[in-house]
């Protein structure tokens, strides 16, 4: 795979690119509710893939239950949920609840979209690991996922 130039210099990125012993991080990129804005989700999915991760894109209109089920079935390290419809304060907490109910709280759950700063703070308090808003550099998102997914692997093997 060709390494995107803008990711040069990232701490552990190249390590995974050439590391045949560990399987790549696997991330579910999800769209929930009735929100059809899929531009951001697709860009993130491609950026994570270009950084050497395996990406499963759920497609549109998934329920929180479906998203968590997909992540568990796929043995995913993380879930990235994108919401631009304003339903974030309902749907993010439902995914957190589902993860806990399924005993999958170790899966790194992060998200993004049109989410005001005070809502983002509240969501992080409720258990969403990070919220990225419009303009967040892809390199930051990739670095975050690699760092957090790496920590998860150390914990759960």
């Amino acid at each position, binding site marked *: 795979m060709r390494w995107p130039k803008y990711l040069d210099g990232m701490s552990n990125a190249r390590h995974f690119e050439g590391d045949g012993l560990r399987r790549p991080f696997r991330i579910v990129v999800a769209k929930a*509710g*009735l*929100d*059809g804005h899929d*531009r951001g989700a697709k860009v993130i999915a*491609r950026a994570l893939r270009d950084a050497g991760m395996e990406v499963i894109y759920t497609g549109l209109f998934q329920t929180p239950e479906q998203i968590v089920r997909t992540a568990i079935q796929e043995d995913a390290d993380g879930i990235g949920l994108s919401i631009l419809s304003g*339903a974030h304060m309902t749907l993010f907490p439902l995914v957190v609840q589902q993860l806990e109910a399924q005993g999958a709280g170790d899966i790194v759950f992060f998200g993004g979209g049109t989410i005001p*700063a005070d809502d983002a703070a509240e969501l992080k308090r409720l258990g969403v690991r990070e919220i990225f808003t419009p303009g967040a550099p892809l390199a930051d998102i990739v670095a975050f996922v690699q760092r957090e997914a790496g920590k998860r692997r150390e914990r759960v093997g």
Partner: protein
Amino acid sequence: MADRAVDRTISDLPLKTVYEPSDVADLDVKRDLGEPGEFPYTRGIHPHMYRDRLWTMRQFAGFGNARQTNERYHFLLAQGQMGLSVAFDMPTLMGYDSDAPQALGEVGKCGVAIDSVKDMETLFAGIDMGAITTSMTINGPAAIALAQYIVAAENSGIPRAELGGTLQADIFKEYIAQKEWIFPPRPHVRIIVDMMKFCTAEMPKWNTISISGYHIREAGSTAVQELAFTLADGFAYVEAAMAAGMDIDTFAPRLSFFFNAHIDFFEEICKFRAARRIYAHRMRDQYGARDPRSWQLRFHTQTAGASATAQQPENNIVRVAYEALSAVLGGTQSLHTNSMDEVLALPTEKSVEIALRTQQVLAYETNVTNVVDPLGGAYFIEALTSEMERQALEYFRQIEAFGGVIEAIEAGFFQREIADASYRYQRSLETKERIVVGVNAFERDETQDDLNLLKIGRDVELGQARDVQAVRATRDAAAVEDALAGLKRVCRSGENVMPALIDACRAFATEGEIVDAMAEVFGRYVERASF
């Protein structure tokens, strides 16, 4: 080295340092430009453009419940807005009632929740529906929204023939970009053709379809893709109506378009000019339209939501002003200017007012309205207009190779082209090849504390769910059942669906019930996920 940002537009069209007569050597002024108001309308569809009549200032608005949005409409009309434009919430756009499980968390968030005729009446309370024009941005359930609007107007004594406005009803761009579909493409197109026939016979002042590139661009397309895909969609509707036996000159004058005004100033102006020229030629030369009004591409413009930034949101006021100027120099018929805070939430009254004032300053102070197509004839403008036309025609050939728009949708062609373009653009920001002020340059630490954002509480959802349940409890249940049975029958038989939809709305069938009945016949569309 050619690969520099200064050598390409934001859509990757090549640019030269300076343009000269040789760049327009092929241009035949009479054939390719004409006079304003004359075929092929490159310079505008009216001979005097804004000297005779300004564009319509039409701010898209809707949030919460019908009562809250009605208050906003009264405010906008009092500020000098000239027409209304309804933004519906996600459940309404997807055909779900506010108490459906799928609607959880979405009610009133992206627009106003409309479940039945009762809500539509509240939405227009105190507004003379015979005197204003209304644009409704709704696609999957467009025919239902129109039926509700007709019934609400008739209940206030205004016959449908007097209603003026525009229904978006562009289902192709839903599959391509906006993703708010209900049924599969073919039944959706049949409903649209039914609606066109109905309006042609009964609603002479109603614009039936607003063929929309706006959402294609917002989904990440280039300007050329927006131009080409939108026009291809428009031509596909024309062909569908003609295949159903309609005479092109009976419906074409009431088709209109909706484009994005993005931040690459000259490219946008050329896009609008190229759109008019391509459309005029195809309508006359390929489809045989004889009425000049059928050759004229009329369009609404909205400034680019995707160009707005969450960082330093006040800067969006400046972006919007430049984008609005490009729409006016490109000859738009109506305009929505985005509010600075829309990247964070629904706009507040204050920010909507600034957006509207931006248009008023442009219209009344800058004098750009005094001369028609002031950039016409500039070497650069004409060369870029022709280049965009050439590239759009190349896209038409690719779409035709699939067999048409529906086949290209089913093959994922548009979706892939847009996703590729959007990722290319995002990477150019990562490398700082392209600069967005406040995002990848000139950043500063900031908090959003000084912006007073409009938030829609859960009380709206609960109240709206109670209201729709009250409607179901108090209406004549047998009349609803009859109306829905009649609707299913015409869906199966192929008769025009509009009268049956109007009957169902009159009986207070809810939108969700009507959609469920139709989906029994038509099925529901499922997209194959890919990125």
